[in-house]
């Protein structure tokens, strides 16, 4: 079998059927898997922050720049924008017992991802978000399914 394509934190990758895209260890970060079921092209980005990329940092680190960037790259690879659907995972609150605002980043990431996908008219057809556990996301471009591996909740298919 072909090696899965690794997507590291604040990075993205595009795959074509039968590629498997994998991002390991989503905490408060969110993995956004976009899929065009006609061309069987998939894209996965692992964002860390919602928005406000003021310092010219990596676009794929932010929801507001990372998602449009991924869409652009997918279209360049042959995907059709209005065929895209999304599955998202992550946005957890990893550390217990603190009301500190910087720990609420998971929640803010979820809001930003929802907002940006809605602006781009891309429906979210599957999700496993929030709560307090880490996730690994495996995205199968053969059929667009996403398997989420966790320690606290076992495996989840979305």
């Amino acid at each position, binding site marked *: 079998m072909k090696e899965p394509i690794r997507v*590291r934190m*604040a990075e993205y990758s595009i795959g074509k059927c039968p590629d498997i895209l994998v991002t390991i260890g989503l905490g408060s970060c969110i993995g956004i898997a976009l899929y065009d079921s006609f061309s069987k092209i998939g894209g996965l980005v692992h964002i860390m922050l919602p928005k406000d990329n003021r310092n010219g940092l990596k676009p794929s680190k932010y929801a507001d720049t990372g998602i449009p960037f991924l869409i652009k790259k997918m279209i360049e690879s042959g995907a059709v924008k209005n065929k895209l659907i999304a599955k998202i995972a992550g946005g957890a609150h990893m550390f217990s017992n603190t009301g500190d605002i910087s720990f609420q980043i*998971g929640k803010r990431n979820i809001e930003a991802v929802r907002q940006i996908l809605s602006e781009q008219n891309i429906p979210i057809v599957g999700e496993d978000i929030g709560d307090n556990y880490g996730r690994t996301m495996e995205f199968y471009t053969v059929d667009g399914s996403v398997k989420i591996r966790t320690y606290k909740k076992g495996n989840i298919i979305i």
Partner: protein
Amino acid sequence: MSELVNNLNYYQKDALKEIGNIGAGNAATAFAQLLDKKIEMTVPSVDIVPIEEVPEVTGGIEQQVLSVFLKVIGEAPGSILLILSENSTRNLLEMILYKKIDLEKIDEVEISAVKEIGNILSGSYLNAINQMTGLNLFQSIPAFSYDMAGAILGSSMINISVESDNALLIETQFKYGNNEIEGYFFFIPNPGSLEKILKSLGFDTK
């Protein structure tokens, strides 16, 4: 300001290593007193790590670990992260609590004990740095997580990632016995704090 993290020279890195050394030495002493055992520590390393590689710095990115996260507050803010393997935590808790530990059923008392270890190590680490630099750094209350190492490390990088695509990690490893206890201790200054820390050590960063 965040550019400094990418442009540190040899002497500046060495000075940061010395900070890690002083901090870790003090923390190891406190740890040894707590356990009444001899704790070894490695010479601290100072690494500038691209943010995407941070989840992998302890090895197994998907390995389940126990961790304590503390914010460093004061003139030069940052974070402290203590990461312990399951095996190390079990041994550690059994030494402190004098009972058999089953991590699958870890309870509040046991979690508090892990947090307190993070608290004690951080307090003594920062005390030593404060004495050396004249800065006044202190830690927030500890937060705990028992989950995937990559998810924990990634989520600890939020403050850093706002300012930079690189993280400066001052890392020390603690060891007791024949791998009975092994832990990673990271002091991670926010990129904007580097200038203040270096200045406090007499460097002109302008």
